[in-house]
């Protein structure tokens, strides 16, 4: 244990510093901007920070979850030979996330954004001796990296449009050219937050260590996408196209993710799909123009999803696998984990006293509100997204119940409870999942509706459990996730291949024409010269005679 304390202490110092910075700003709606290093004419990048209430909340979430994950990892991964690099990359990851959150300059934000992509690659590929980890890491990196091009181009467009890269100045200047900017940023966000159609990297990132999954899914990586849109919401709101697209993407993703989560046979993968679905909830709230609802859900989801993943890690620690078939009946032997994860699943399903209920309530209220025509979204779309969200709530409640039942009920199995360092963070997060609900706004009608829907979902699954005795879902297409990965697997190589062939063809038929034609010309010239240098006396004599004849003719004609 001695070996681990420097890293935990480092993370703790970072967390305390960030918290000390963030907490005074929690109620500050306008935020305070501080320029540490002013950009000059040569390099227009200012090292500036901007912290408002939103940023403070996300900062606290990030460092809180990060600290808990770091503590958790001492037990979970403490004996790993590469623990040191692992722990330091977590710190770097947190710093990058904090950079993204506090940055007031787009390029500083981009740096944090990319460093996060790098860290996620390194951490997902932590177990690089396995093929899945390697390919999952590469997939996550490539997909987010490609999407990040949208951010880069978007930043350049912002710089061209506003003449500054400072976020606060851009926001103060009001929306300009916002459709192009919003669409470009949307690409980056869709990639980073694993939304349809770039959603496939997140479940494939599961070979990474479970604490990392918790970190990525709850506090950092995917939250950065939500945060970016929340931060730049005025720009998005100015573009109906971008908001419509965001709403459509969110609607598709939330339902797909929930359905995929329902069909999984692997707890961790199911939770991953649940993250995709829940992130889509946040984007739906953002599309409805309600930033508070989105950030509330981000916070509560960060808490309960980190809880669920860390709890999942406890189960894996006990069982040795994340497969649902290996679990079951763990309620008695792992009571603390059971209790904490019950709270987590309840929050996921949206059961009343948990933070998940209130934040989801806020999202639904925002969507309902958007359907009234007060937001940017078209009414019909707002209504559709609202009903999709309700359906997703139903499915979410169902799969949360299913996972809960399959993991903890059934035939009792004897396993040891996880060590203290793992239980501690889980319990803390469970407490947070409950505490975060304090002071949340509440909408009675919507709350009643969502409670009914959640109860229906839970009831259906419990009824099926009672009737069937198991909860195996026979939906191979859903389990294969609709083969949405296949296009990437099939078309991308084909696309790259044909692009490479095109390049080869251009190189061969376009570029090489010049050297080849010059070679041909040289050959022809040498053949022509070769005629003169034939080593054949008669040829020489012929050339001489012809020359004499020509010269004589010329002399006769021109004199």
């Amino acid at each position, binding site marked *: 244990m001695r070996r681990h304390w420097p890293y935990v202490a480092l993370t703790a110092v970072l967390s305390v510093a960030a918290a000390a910075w963030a907490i005074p700003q929690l109620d500050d709606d306008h935020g305070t901007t501080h320029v540490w290093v002013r950009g000059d004419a040569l390099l227009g990048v200012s090292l500036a920070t901007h912290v408002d209430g939103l940023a403070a909340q996300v900062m606290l979430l990030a460092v809180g979850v990060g600290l808990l994950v770091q503590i958790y990892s001492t037990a979970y991964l403490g004996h790993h030979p590469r623990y040191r690099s692992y722990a330091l990359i977590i710190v770097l990851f947190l710093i990058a996330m904090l950079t993204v959150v506090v940055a007031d300059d787009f390029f500083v934000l981009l740096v944090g954004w990319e460093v996060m992509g790098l860290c996620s690659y390194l951490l997902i590929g932590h177990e690089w001796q396995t093929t899945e980890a390697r390919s999952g890491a590469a997939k996550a990196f490539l997909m987010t990296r490609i999407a990040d091009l949208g951010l880069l181009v978007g930043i350049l467009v912002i710089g061209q449009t506003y003449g500054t890269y400072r976020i606060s100045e851009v926001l103060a200047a009001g929306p300009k050219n916002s459709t192009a900017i919003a669409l470009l940023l949307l690409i980056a966000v869709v990639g980073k937050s694993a939304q349809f159609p770039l959603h496939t990297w997140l479940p494939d990132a599961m070979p990474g260590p479970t604490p990392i999954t918790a970190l990525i899914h709850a506090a950092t990586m995917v939250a950065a996408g939500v945060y970016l849109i929340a931060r730049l919401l005025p720009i998005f709101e100015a573009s109906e196209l971008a908001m419509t697209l965001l709403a459509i993407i969110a609607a598709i993703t939330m339902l797909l993710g929930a359905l995929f989560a329902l069909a999984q046979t692997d707890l961790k993968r199911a939770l991953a799909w649940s993250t995709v679905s829940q992130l889509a909830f946040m984007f739906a709230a953002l599309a409805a123009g309600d930033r508070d609802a989105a950030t509330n859900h981000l916070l509560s989801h960060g808490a309960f999803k980190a809880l669920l993943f860390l709890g999942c890690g406890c189960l894996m620690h006990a069982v040795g696998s994340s497969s649902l078939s290996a679990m079951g009946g763990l309620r008695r032997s792992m009571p603390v984990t059971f209790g904490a994860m019950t709270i987590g699943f309840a929050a996921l399903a949206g059961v009343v006293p948990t933070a998940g209920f209130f934040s989801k309530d806020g999202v639904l209220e925002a969507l309902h509100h958007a359907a009234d025509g007060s937001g940017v979204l078209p009414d019909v779309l707002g209504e559709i997204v609202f009903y999709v969200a309700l359906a997703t709530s139903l499915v979410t409640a169902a799969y949360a119940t299913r996972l809960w039942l399959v993991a903890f009920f059934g035939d009792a199995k004897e396993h040891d409870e996880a060590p203290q360092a793992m239980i501690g963070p889980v319990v803390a997060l469970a407490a947070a999942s409950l505490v975060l609900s304090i002071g949340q706004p509440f909408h009675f009608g919507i709350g009643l509706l969502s409670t009914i829907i959640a109860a229906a979902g839970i009831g259906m699954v419990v009824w099926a459990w009672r009737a069937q005795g198991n909860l195996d879902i026979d939906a191979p297409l859903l389990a294969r996730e609709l083969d949405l990965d296949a296009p990437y697997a099939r078309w991308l190589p084909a696309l790259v291949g044909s692009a490479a062939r095109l390049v080869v063809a251009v190189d061969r038929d376009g570029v090489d024409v010049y050297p080849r034609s010059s070679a041909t010309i040289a050959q022809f010239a040498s053949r022509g010269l070769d005629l003169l240098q034939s080593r*054949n006396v008669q040829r020489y004599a012929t050339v001489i005679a012809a020359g004499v004849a020509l010269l004589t003719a010329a002399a006769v004609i021109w004199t």
Partner: protein
Amino acid sequence: MPLLYPLVLAAALFGIGLYGVLARRNAVLMLLGVELMLNAANLNLVAFDAWFGDKMHSGQVLTLFTIALAAAEIGLGLAIILTLFRALRTVDVDQVGVDR
């Protein structure tokens, strides 16, 4: 007698000789073409001498010189061709210089 007769004859012989020099494969016959061209020149010399009536008989004397030089030239030429033949076993001009 019109002066043109020998002159045109000389022109024709010169052309034929030129053809022989440029076209015949055998080196000895190339030399014969040269002789033909020299003879065409001789015809011109004699014809102009006869036409001009030069007291020094320049044309005829130069013709004699030319004949002597032609004899010397053919002697040297044939010596070279014989040496070539000994070295290469051929006197084909388009083989000489190729594929040593």
